């Protein structure tokens, strides 16, 4: 992710985990007129900005989406995928070290605005609907991550 180097994470494991539950999870999302990871949130992110955005999004998925989803009554198959995804996110976040240097302030602000677009849309929904939608949009998130993985 731009200046952040992440090694040792096998993205295909994440794909396999999500693909196993994709249709089940996306079928729980009935509000198809709303997309959290809108086209304006992710694409055309500079390398430098991608580290901040990835860090913010992955932390949100870990601390909000997976955590709350885990407490719901879900089938075992989803729990199994959920823990694979969560464990890999913990690994990635531990390796993502967004720069704290001053000259990165503007980039950090731009990344934060992008993340707020996503978070605001999430908060406008009822929590159950928001969780299902965010989890169902992991294919969009992983596609975006894959593009940065490819560039390493």
């Amino acid at each position, binding site marked *: 992710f731009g200046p952040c180097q992440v090694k040792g994470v096998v993205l295909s494991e994440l*794909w396999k985990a999500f693909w196993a539950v994709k249709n089940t999870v*996306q079928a729980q999302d009935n509000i*198809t007129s709303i997309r959290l990871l809108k086209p304006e949130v992710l694409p055309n992110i500079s390398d430098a900005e991608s580290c901040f955005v990835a860090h913010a999004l992955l932390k949100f998925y870990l601390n909000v989406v997976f955590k709350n989803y885990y407490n719901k009554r879900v089938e075992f198959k989803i729990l199994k995928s959920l823990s694979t995804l969560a464990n890999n996110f913990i690994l990635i976040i531990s390796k993502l070290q967004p720069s704290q240097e001053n000259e990165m302030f503007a980039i950090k602000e731009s990344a934060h605005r992008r993340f707020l677009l996503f978070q605001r849309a999430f908060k406008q929904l009822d929590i159950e609907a928001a969780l299902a939608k965010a989890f169902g949009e992991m*294919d969009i998130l*992983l596609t975006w991550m*894959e593009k940065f993985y*490819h560039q390493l």
Partner: protein
Amino acid sequence: ATCVSGGLPQPTNITFISINMQNILRWNPPAELQGAEVTYTVQYFIYGQKKWLSKPECRNINRTYCDLSVETSDYEHQYYAKVKAMWETNCSRWAETTRFYPFLETQIGPPEVALTTGEKSISITLTAPEKWKRNPEDSTVFMQQIYPNLKYNVSVYNTKSKRMWSQSITNHTLVLSWLEPSTLYCVQVEAFIPGPPRLIQPSHKQCVSTLEDQASALKVR
């Protein structure tokens, strides 16, 4: 036309068949109405937007497929489609697809494979599969331009020793060296992209024989 909704069973197995970004919606007629003069109407939806959209060419049609390649050609988007059956004054409820993400789900067609033989070598030249074109005269876009991380899996089979091996490459040429002369080798290639599991279409198997060993040919004379 107005009709009694739910008076007919729904079409079944509604799904997108997508190869090189040509996205065709297919379905089966309602179970009990095989052969009846049933017509169908299709609509599609862009995830995150507000309205279902119609495709005029797929309204009141007899066939059980509808090409939605143009309507679903934006890689950044995900789509749904739905179909309803109509017969006389009755119609079914809509039958809907799961969320369709062409960028992740399109099958990658086989590359074109050209083989040239040497005494103990075979040169393989690959041409990437082409993306579906709206019009034949549109400029060609290769799938590798859409997926920079596209790779090829080359499988080689020695018909004499019955040995098979394969190799993953990213560029378009591969020279197989240290082969046995005067031996028939079969080659098959498939294109794949790291990411979610995708259906893969391998190339046709092509078999060529390496040339005769020139040294032994001279001795014989």
